[in-house]
C-alpha cells in the first residue's frame, strides 16, 4: 500500500491536469451542443473529414453524433498521451533521477515496487475517466441532453483499457531503454503514429486492415456512444496490457539500474 500511495502522490499533478483537462473539454463540448445543434443539423461534413475521425455521414442534430465527432475523436489520443507520459516517467524517471537507489535499498522486492507503481497507473486512469465522465454528466443534466447518463459514463470508461494498453507499452519500453527520455520519445511517437494509422485506414478500403494493429481501433471511439464498447475489443486491450506489463516486470526485475544502455537482454535474463 505504501508504494501505491506514493505512486498516486507522484502522479497527482498529471492526473489532476489530465482529469481536469478532459473533464473541462467534455463539459465545453456538451455545453456547445444546444447552440450548434441547429447549425450542425443541416451541415454536411466532407466524407474524408468524417472518415478520418472514424465517423460516417451522421445526423449532427443527434447529440451522440456531435459528441462522437467533436469529443470521442480526440479524447482517446489525449488520454493515451497521459498513459505514455505517466508510465515512462514512473520507474524510469525515478531511476534517472537516482531516487530508485534509495527506494530499492530498502527490503522491498522489485516486483512489489513494480506492481504498486502499476496499480497507481491503473488508479490514475480510472480517476481521469471519472473526471471525464463528470465533465460530461453535469452539463448534460443541466441542458437535459438526450443521451442516457450511463451511455456517457460508459463512453468515458471505455477509454480505460486504451490507457492501460498504452501504459503497458510505456512500462515495457522504459524497462529496456537507457533513459526515460528515450522511452517517452519512442512510445509517444508510436502512439501518435498508430493513431494516425487508424485514422488514415478509415479513408481507404485498401488501408483498412492496418487499423487492426492500432489500439485506437479497439477503443471504439466512433461507435461507443451508439452501440457501447465491443467487449472483445476491450479484452484485446486489457490482454495487451497484461502481456506488456508482465514482460515489463520481467525486464525490470533483471534491469541494471542507471547503467545508461539498452537492456533488451533483461527480457530473457532470469534474475538470480
Amino acid at each position, binding site marked *: 500500500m505504501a*508504494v501505491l500511495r506514493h505512486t498516486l502522490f507522484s502522479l497527482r499533478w498529471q492526473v489532476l491536469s489530465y482529469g481536469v483537462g478532459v473533464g473541462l473539454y467534455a463539459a465545453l463540448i456538451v455545453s456547445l451542443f444546444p447552440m450548434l445543434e441547429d447549425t450542425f443539423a443541416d451541415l454536411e461534413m466532407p466524407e474524408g473529414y468524417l472518415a478520418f475521425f472514424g465517423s460516417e455521414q451522421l445526423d449532427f442534430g443527434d447529440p451522440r453524433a456531435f459528441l462522437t465527432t467533436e469529443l470521442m475523436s480526440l479524447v482517446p489520443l489525449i488520454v493515451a498521451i497521459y498513459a505514455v507520459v505517466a508510465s515512462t516517467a514512473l520507474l524510469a524517471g525515478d531511476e534517472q533521477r*537516482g531516487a530508485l*537507489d*534509495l*527506494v530499492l*535499498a*530498502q527490503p522491498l522486492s522489485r516486483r512489489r515496487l513494480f506492481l504498486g507503481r502499476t496499480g497507481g497507473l491503473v488508479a490514475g486512469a480510472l480517476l481521469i475517466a471519472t473526471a471525464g465522465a463528470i465533465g460530461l454528466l453535469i452539463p448534460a443534466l443541466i441542458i437535459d441532453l438526450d443521451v442516457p447518463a450511463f451511455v456517457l459514463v460508459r463512453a468515458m470508461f471505455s477509454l480505460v483499457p486504451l490507457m492501460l494498453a498504452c501504459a503497458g507499452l510505456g512500462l515495457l519500453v522504459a524497462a529496456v531503454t537507457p533513459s526515460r527520455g528515450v522511452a517517452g520519445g519512442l512510445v509517444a511517437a508510436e502512439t501518435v503514429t498508430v493513431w494516425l494509422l487508424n485514422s488514415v485506414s478509415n479513408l481507404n478500403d485498401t488501408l483498412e486492415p492496418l487499423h487492426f494493429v492500432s489500439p485506437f481501433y479497439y477503443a471504439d471511439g466512433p461507435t461507443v456512444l451508439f452501440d457501447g464498447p465491443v467487449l472483445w475489443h476491450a479484452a484485446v486491450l486489457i490482454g495487451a496490457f497484461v502481456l506488456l506489463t508482465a514482460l515489463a516486470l520481467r525486464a525490470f526485475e533483471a534491469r541494471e*539500474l542507471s547503467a545508461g544502455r539498452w537492456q533488451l537482454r533483461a527480457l530473457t535474463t532470469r*534474475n538470480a
Partner: protein
Amino acid sequence: MHAIRIEQLTKDYGPVVALNGLDLTVEEGEVFGFLGPNGSGKTTTLRILMDLIRPTSGRAEILGFDTQRQSIEVRARIGYLPDDPQMYDDMNVHAFLRLMASLRGADGGNGGRPRHEQRRDELIERLQLDPTRRIGALSRGNRQKVGIVLALMFEPPLVVADEPTTGLDPLVREEVELILREIAQQGGTVFFSSHVLGEVEQVCDRVAMLREGRVIDVLVPAERRRLAPQRFLVSFETAPPAGAFDGLPDVTVVSHDGTEAVLELVAGVDALVKCLANFRVTHLETHEVSLEELFMSYYEPDSSDASPGTAADAAAGGQG
C-alpha cells in the same frame, strides 16, 4: 560469520572491465575503508552488494546471505548511502523518511513510539538538519545528511556508504566520523568508500586499496603507522663529519649536506638519539609516512603491482 565476503567478483560493460576478480572479506564489528581512484570499481562494488546491478561473474555474501538470490534479506540488514543521494524533491525531509520507513515495513508497531523514530530524531539533531524543509530546496550537504539519517536510523547491523562525508562541513564531517565509530563500538559494521584519506586513516580499522577493479592491498592504518618508516630532518650548528651516521642500526641516511641531514628510521629510535646527542642540534623535525603518501605510491603510473614494502619505499622516496 563475515559481515561481507566477496569472491572473484567481475563486472564488465562490454569491453570496459569495472571489476576484475575482486576478493574481499570484511569482519563484523569493524570499520572498513574502500580506497581507490575514480573508476577503480568502488561504486560498482557497492551497487552490486545492494543488487542494483548484477555481476558478470563471482558472488558476494552479506552476513551469510547471497546478495543476488537473497537480496531482500540482505537489504533488511543494510543501511545504504549512495554517492550523491537523490530523493523526491517535492517531499519534505520528514515525509521522505516516513515513506522510506513504510517501504521498509517499519511504520507503526505495538503502540509505542517506534525505535527508529527516536534514532531518526537523535541523528537529525546531531547532524543539525531541519526536517521540515522541502528536499528540493536542500543544499548538497543537507541532502547528504538526509541520506546519512536514512542509512542509520534503522540501526542496521551493516552500513554501506559511498563517500559518506562528501559535501559536509568539517564540523558535521567530524560528527559523522564519530557516529561511524560508535556504530562499530556497538558491534555494527561499517563499509565505506572515500577519497578523504585522513578520514579513512582516522576512522577505519582496515583499508582496502583498489586498482583497476582488484584489491591490491589491505592495510591496517594503526599497524601501518607503527611499521611505516619515520623520517628525521635534522639541522646542526656545525656540520657533523661525513659518515657520522653510518652503521647506526635501522637508520638510512637519505641525505647529508653540511649542517642538514635527512635520516630514515624503521625501528627503535634509541641509537639515533644517542648518536645525535654527540652534536649540537638546532632543529629536529620528524615526519611519518601518511596514508595519503602510501595511496599516491600505489597509483603512480608505473606502479603495476604493489606491496607494503614498495609502497613505503615510494612514499619515503617522494619526500626527498
